[in-house]
Structure formats: structure tokens, C-alpha cells
């Protein structure tokens, strides 16, 4: 087994950050044969910007034409479709509607459709009022017209990066969690990174530190050409019966700043309303704000009036690693380092495309002497409603979380394997345990019993 081999005393590539971007980078370099280490400061992966997003696999129809972002989103979308079945990753082929709610927005539709076509998204279709109502009968009365983007899909925002990293591990990558990079020195050929787990030697460094991208540049290079300006997005998740209210991803006409409030299904069978776009200074505070949530709820009910009769299951907020400019901040430094910064609001879709781009950037410099091993395709457990779930087969040990139908066997699997969950949050992301309507009313006890002594960040106050 490659991942049980002793850690090399010198890696080819050290990736700082196990967000979706870091996970995709690790996969790409490890599959190419590089000796990769991923350094993540949190108890578990996906604890930064990647922990809360809308889970849309974008086509890039509204990305700035000709931009690196547009190219990475398109390439990421294509690669996801190509590899997802082999990794056990789900896909909800919902398609999106970009809906105009006013005269002004209606007037903007042709321009947006033109932009989509220039971005290579040509399979779009205009829907006038009646056609729109037929496509989406539950829409509020104010909806005027729309265009359909058939290949905007919904995916699992946590299983996907988990699968990328699991595949990296299967190709020999090391992953160190609770390992914060605190400094480093470059001696002309190699880096020695200072971390909370001791020094790490590596030939190259990739900064994929998300909300801390500028800080890492500063720390390692003593300079940075961008500043992270976190932009918070709050969401409301509705209970499963609301899933049936909308077939498409319902997008508004975007403004310059944001894609706007979206209503869409989730791969787990819920319905989502969000996100907001709120600039803030804090890189950690994903706090929820009651008046904002009330407003989100009200907006959701304008879009889908029937939502008024549905129950809220969960609330969350995510922080986009935005910078002073809209575009991705990917740059190569002479010190054997590449910064992948400012992956603001399309990173889930673009991650695999970003990894392709960064690999090329790296290889442009020097032809690597790595030998790519025979590819292996470890598959992640399915927790989406698009395919049979574990509770539907025998031997699951009983259902532990009744709202999300998470079995004991699923929990045990997530606490073991090559990348076991290390925090309750990590366990939730791998299994959905406690994330349903009761939020732990029924399963908190059984879960505490099963996880006791297994998490580096325990559930209870006296573990």
C-alpha cells in the first residue's frame, strides 16, 4: 500500500490547505507520480471556505469571457463528469434557470445569453413567461422570463474533495491534519516549512490556503500581490418535502458583485435558499444573523410561494476567499512556489480544472522526472439521494441518525479508513449525521457513544 510507506525526508510538492482546491491539486500531482504532502491546520479537511457553499457544478456561462476562471470552470466541469462514476460521486442533473423578475432584468437576459454562448455554453434556451411557468410551475407570480442552462448541475460539495484526496492518498500522498504552516525558508533548491508538527522538507510549495492565501504568501515570500476580503454567504436549508418544489436551480440575474439569491435542491434531498454576499474583515466568523435569515426566508417565499408551508432544517454560512479583484489569483514565483489564491465563488466547480492548469504551470518550468503509477480509483461511500443508500442494504447495523438515515456501518466507516473523520464537523460532512430536521434530538447519545475517544476534537465537554 503506497500510503503506509514511510514519509519521505523530502517531498516534491507540499500543498498548504485541504480545501477543495488543495484536494484536487493533491490528486493531480500524486497521480502524476509526485511525492505529495498536504498540510492542513484544522482538525479535518474542508474546514475553510469549502465547508459551506451552494454545491452547484457550474458551467461557467456567466464567468468573465476569456478569463482563467472561465477556462478552469469549464475544464473542471468536464473532468468531474468524466471521473465521477469511478470515484462514486453523485450528480443531480437539474439544469438551471436564470430568471428575470423585473423589466430591467428581462432586458438583461439577451446579453447574458450572448455571454454564455461566448463562454462556449451554447446549449441554452430562452423561455418566455408561459414556457417558464410550464418548466417550473411553483414560481412566484412576478417571474417574467428566463433562459435555461441545462448543464448546471448539483453535486456533493464534501464527498467530491474527499474523493480527490482519497485518490491522492491511494497514489502515495501524505495528509497531515492539525498541521499549521507557520513559516518557511527556501535555500535556492528546497523549502523547509515550519509547521506545528515540525519541519517539512519539499522541493516545491503550492499555497492553497483559501481565506489565508495572502497571509501564506507573506509568511513564505515576504510579499503578496492580493488581499483577502472575506465575503460571507448565509443559507437556509429546508426539510426534504420541499425538495419537490423546484426542479431547476433557480438563479437570479447576477449583479456585478454576486450571483445573487439562489433556490436549489441539494443532492441529499433538501431545498436550499441563499447565499447572501456580505463583505467582512473576519476570516473566521461565519456567524448567522437573524434579520438576514428572516429576509432570506422572505425572498425564498417570493421565488417559491409554497415554501411558506415548509420547515427549516438547518442554517449555515460560508466565507468566500474574495480579493480586491474578481479574477483568480494564480501565480508562479521564482522560489519554487505557486499561489492559488482568490478562488472566490466557483472553486467547487473549477477545482479539477485549476489542478490541470497548475500542473501545466509547474511542468512548463521543468519536465518532472516522476513516474506516474497505474491509476487506482478508490470510491467514496454514497450519501446522496440520487443512488441507493446504505440503509437499503442488509448488515448496516441499524439506523443511527433517523432524519438523514445514516447507519451505524456508515459512521464506523467514516471513523476508519485512509482519512478518518477527526471532528464532529468532519463526521457530519462525511455522513450527514445530525444534519437533518431534528439536529441531534434523537441520535446525539448513540453518536457520542460511537465516537468516544475517536475524534481529536471530541463531542463533549469532558472527553
Amino acid at each position, binding site marked *: 500500500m503506497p500510503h503506509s510507506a514511510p514519509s519521505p525526508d523530502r517531498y516534491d510538492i507540499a500543498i498548504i490547505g485541504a480545501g477543495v482546491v488543495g484536494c484536487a491539486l493533491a490528486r493531480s500531482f500524486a497521480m502524476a507520480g509526485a511525492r505529495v504532502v498536504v498540510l492542513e491546520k484544522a482538525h479535518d479537511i474542508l474546514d475553510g471556505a469549502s465547508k459551506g457553499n451552494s454545491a452547484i457544478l457550474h458551467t461557467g456561462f456567466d464567468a468573465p469571457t476569456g478569463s482563467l476562471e472561465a477556462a478552469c470552470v469549464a475544464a473542471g466541469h468536464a473532468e468531474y463528469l468524466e471521473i465521477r462514476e469511478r470515484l462514486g460521486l453523485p450528480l443531480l442533473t437539474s439544469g438551471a434557470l436564470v430568471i428575470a423578475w423585473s423589466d430591467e432584468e428581462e432586458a438583461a437576459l439577451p446579453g447574458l445569453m450572448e455571454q454564455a454562448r461566448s463562454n462556449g455554453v451554447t446549449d441554452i434556451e430562452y423561455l418566455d413567461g408561459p414556457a417558464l411557468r410550464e418548466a417550473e410551475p411553483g414560481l412566484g407570480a412576478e417571474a417574467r422570463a428566463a433562459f435555461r442552462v441545462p448543464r448546471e448541475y448539483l453535486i456533493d460539495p464534501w464527498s467530491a474533495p474527499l474523493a480527490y484526496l482519497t485518490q491522492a492518498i491511494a497514489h502515495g500522498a501524505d495528509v497531515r491534519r492539525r498541521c499549521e504552516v507557520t513559516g518557511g525558508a527556501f535555500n535556492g533548491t528546497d523549502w523547509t516549512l515550519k509547521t506545528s508538527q515540525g519541519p517539512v522538507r519539499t522541493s516545491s510549495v503550492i499555497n492553497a490556503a483559501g481565506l489565508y492565501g495572502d497571509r501564506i504568501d507573506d509568511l513564505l515570500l515576504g510579499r503578496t500581490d492580493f488581499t483577502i476580503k472575506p465575503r460571507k454567504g448565509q443559507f437556509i436549508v429546508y426539510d426534504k418535502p420541499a425538495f419537490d418544489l423546484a426542479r431547476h436551480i433557480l438563479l437570479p440575474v447576477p449583479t456585478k458583485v454576486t450571483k445573487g439569491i439562489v433556490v436549489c435542491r441539494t443532492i441529499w434531498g433538501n431545498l436550499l435558499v441563499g447565499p447572501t454576499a456580505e463583505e467582512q474583515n473576519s476570516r473566521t466568523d461565519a456567524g*448567522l444573523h437573524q434579520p438576514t435569515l428572516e429576509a432570506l426566508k422572505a425572498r425564498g417565499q417570493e421565488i417559491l410561494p409554497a415554501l411558506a408551508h415548509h420547515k427549516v432544517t438547518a442554517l449555515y454560512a460560508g466565507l468566500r476567499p474574495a480579493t480586491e479583484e474578481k479574477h483568480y489569483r494564480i501565480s508562479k514565483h521564482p522560489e519554487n512556489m505557486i499561489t492559488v489564491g482568490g478562488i472566490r465563488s466557483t472553486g467547487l466547480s473549477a477545482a479539477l480544472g485549476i489542478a490541470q492548469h497548475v500542473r501545466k504551470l509547474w511542468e512548463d518550468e521543468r519536465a518532472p522526472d516522476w513516474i506516474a503509477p497505474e491509476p487506482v480509483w478508490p470510491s467514496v461511500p454514497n450519501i446522496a439521494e440520487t443512488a441507493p443508500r446504505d440503509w437499503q442494504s442488509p448488515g448496516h447495523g441499524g439506523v443511527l441518525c433517523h432524519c438523514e438515515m445514516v447507519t451505524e456501518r456508515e459512521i464506523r466507516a467514516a471513523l476508519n479508513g485512509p482519512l478518518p473523520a477527526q471532528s464532529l464537523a468532519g463526521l457530519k460532512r462525511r455522513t450527514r449525521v445530525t444534519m437533518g430536521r431534528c439536529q441531534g434530538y434523537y441520535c446525539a447519545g448513540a453518536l457520542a457513544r460511537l465516537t468516544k475517544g475517536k475524534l481529536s476534537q471530541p463531542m463533549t465537554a469532558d472527553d
Partner: protein
Amino acid sequence: MTDLPAEIDVVIVGAGPAGLAAATVIAQGGGCRVVVLDREGQAGGVPRHCSHSPYGLREFRRLMTGPSYAKTLVEKAKSAGVVIHTGVNVTRLLPGPTIEVTSDAGPATIRARAVLLATGARETTRAERLIGGTKPQGVLSTGALQLLLETGQKPFHRPVILGTELVAFSALLSCRLAGIKPVAMIEPSDTVTARWPTGLFPRLQGTPLLKNTQISQIDGQAHVTGVQLSTGRTLQTDGLIVSGRFQPDAPLLARSPIRADPDTGGPEIDQFGRCSEAGYFAAGNLLRAVETAGWSWSEGRAIGAAIHAYLNDGLPADPGQRIRRSGPISALVPQRIAPGPALGLSSLQLRVGTALTGRLSLLSDGSVIAGKTLRSRPERRILLPLPQAGTGPEVRLEPRGSR
């Protein structure tokens, strides 16, 4: 575990007080095979985790703790011939009645002559209340708290309790028994919701009660560090118990042929406990959210007797009439009155959504047949006599100004 039957006379979904009481009555009546299914590893329902009293007064004229009460109910059912299967989740309700289940043995289907739904109620979460702030560990319902304490683990040491329904006092008692010291009890309105104990109770136990107060924000990253109050104050605390505002645990209704009552969120029933789909019945907290165990138990017995009659002598198929209502009534159970024998529920249960005083009347064919002056608060039981079938029953509540 013994094998699940493919066909059976009666399936009871939920081994809480209501389900076990009904199962016992039906089995004692003789002539039919009864199974109770519960998704937990142990039968007994919620009382299983309530390490404190009072339980059992109505049923056994004894003051019991939750666990010993649950054990007694289970033993009574078993000695009446009821078979209990635990670790079985009911996943779908289909016409027939036919139900789909899953257990460690995998999915299965059971066809029955009658199915009783007794799946209980749960508290309203922080998310549903849209409480702002961060999402640290240590924000729990009373139900989750008791489950955690049962494992011998303490989720926090000095939490804040939100709410003053009976269950909030249950939380307080459970904390005390576990050596946890709540720092405050918070009530958004100007009155304590529970009839007993009085508003003095928390202070007597050393926990101050803050009325007219909301929680505006939860603070803390990994764990709770404080809660900000609408009064501008911040309480230093390491946990928050979000208690009460129970609602029927009725997700099974969502994709079933059974009609839900939009007010209660539980199934719509007649006085026999019959749902809108033939062969389905419901009892206990699933009907209207929270009541005492004793109340749910006697409801289970009454509806169990109606099920026994349904299986043996039949009940008239006539679904009867919906009870009309006017005024600020937030829930009414049963929702229909059907013709038939004097079996099943013996009174109408009502709830109001806000504290109010007013005149409550029951009308039959347009004239008042019962009435009373009402002074009530949310979550409190209000009773009226059961009207006759076929008389165009109506419940009218005329408020005299809310308090």
C-alpha cells in the same frame, strides 16, 4: 432479533407510552396478533431517558422515574402477548395498509390489517427558530441532552436554558442530577409557560429566570462561549439548551397517502384515531405535540380499543364531518367526528398560540351546547366535550384581548 412478519393483524409504529398502551389493549382484547416496531435499540419511547419523576401517577398510581415507567409499560405489553421489535425503522407508509421498514437485516415490507402511528414529538430546533450567531458544539435540545447524559457524558457545565415549558424544567432537573449548573433560564414572553412549577422554581434552585428576553446570538467557535440577549446583556456560558415548542415527528406523512393537519403537523384523525387512509390510526404526541406520558398512554388505550373494534366488529366507513373552527385556535384534535360506537377519544383537545382570555364555545347544529371562559397560554391542554357525529360541530373562540 426474531424475523419480522410479512403479514400481521396490527403493526404499531413507535414503542412509547401511546404505542405500548394501544398494543397492550388490542392484544388483551384477543383474536389478533400485534407487533410493535421501534427504531431505537430499546422500547419505551422518551421516558426511557428521563431519569427523573413524575411518571406513572395516572397509569399506575405510583410516582416513578422515566426508565422504570418505560420498563413497566414494556413488561405489560409483553405479558399481554405483544411482540416488540427494536432497531426497526419504518421508512414508508403505503396504501393497504402496507409499510416499508429497514433494519440490520435490510429492507422489508409488512402488510397489516391495521397500522397505528405513535411516533411521538420532538422539540423545535435552533435552526427552525432562526437563532443567529455561530454554530459551535454545545447547542442542544432537551431530548439530545438527556440522551447524552445517559451515556455518562456531559456536553457542558453551565448552560443557559431557553424556554419555560415543562420540558425546560425537565432539562433543569436532568442538569442538576448530572451535576451541571444552568446559569439562567430564558423566556421570550412575560410569563412562564408551564403551569407547574411556578416561576419561582428556577430561582429556588439558584438559576435566575429572565423573562421578556430573547437570544439574539450564539458565540463561540469550537464550543459555545456565550449567548447575547435581546436586552443587550451577554451571558458567559458553555452551552445552550433550546427547549420545547414540540412538534409531531411526522416525516413519514410527507410522501404517504395520509393527510396531515396543517395546524398540528400530525395526521388528521377522527375520534377513533382513524387517519384519512383506510387502516391507518394515530395516537400520542404525534397528534398534537407534547402532553404528559400519562395522557399519551390513556390516548393509546382509547384508540387501541377502537382498533380492536375495527378489526373485530368493524367501524362505519363514513369519515364523518370536519369540526369547523373560528378564532385563534392553533390546534384541534380530533379534527373530524364520525358516526359509530362510543369508543376512542372522549374529549376534544385544543391549543392556543398565544396567551389569551376569551369565551370558548362548542356549537352543534348552530347552537351552543357547551362553553367556558378561557384563560390560557400556549402549550396548555384545553378540553371540550366530544360533539355528536352529524351535527355540524363547530368550535368558536372569541378572545377578550390578548395578554
